[in-house]
C-alpha cells in the first residue's frame, strides 16, 4: 500500500522534473532535471523490486545509480572542456 503511494509520489516527482527538462531554459537546468529524473528512477525501480518481491531487480537500480552519475560527469566534462581526452593536468 505505502509502496504504491511511494511509487505514485516518485512518478509525480519525475513528471515535474521532466517538465523542467523540457522547459529549460538553460542547458544546466536540463542537466539538473535529467539527473534528478535519474535518481528518482533509481528509487522507482527499487520500490518496484520490493513491491514485486523480486529483489534481483535491485541490481538494476544499483547499476543505474552508477551509470547516471557517470553520465552526468561525462556531460559536465564535455561542457567544461569540450572534449573527452583532456586530463585536466594543466592547472
Amino acid at each position, binding site marked *: 500500500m505505502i*509502496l504504491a*503511494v511511494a511509487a505514485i509520489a*516518485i512518478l509525480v*516527482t519525475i513528471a515535474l522534473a521532466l*517538465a523542467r527538462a523540457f522547459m529549460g531554459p538553460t542547458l544546466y537546468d536540463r542537466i539538473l532535471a535529467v539527473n534528478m529524473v535519474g535518481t528518482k528512477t533509481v528509487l522507482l525501480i527499487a520500490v518496484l523490486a520490493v513491491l514485486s518481491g523480486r529483489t534481483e531487480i535491485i541490481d538494476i537500480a544499483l547499476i543505474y545509480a552508477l551509470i547516471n552519475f557517470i553520465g*552526468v*560527469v561525462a556531460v*559536465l566534462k564535455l561542457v*567544461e572542456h569540450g572534449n573527452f581526452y583532456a586530463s585536466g593536468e594543466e592547472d
Partner: protein
Amino acid sequence: MILIEMLSWLFIGAGALLGIAGGIGIHRFPDFYSRLHAAGTTDTLCAALFLIGLAMQTGVSVASFKLLLIFAFLFFSSPTASHALANAAMLGNLKPYLDENNADQQP
C-alpha cells in the same frame, strides 16, 4: 515487527513528500543555482529515507544490503554531481540571480 513496519511507512511517506517538494521546488525557484538547491539537496535525503524505508521492509538480507549500498553510493555521488554541475555552470559563465539587497556578493 509492527514497529518496523510503521517506521518504514513513516520513512517512505516522508521521502515521498520530500521528493514532491523538490519537484515543485525546481519549478518555483527563479534560476539555475537556486533550483540546484531544491533538486540536489532534497535528492539526498529523499533517497535516504526511501532506501532505508525499503530496507526495513525487506529485512536483513542481500536485498537490504544492496539498498543500503545504493544509498551509500547516492550519498557520495549526488553532492559531487551537484557541485560539478554548479562548477560547470560557473565556468560556463552562467550568471546567478542574486538578491540585490545584499552588498556582500562576491566573484
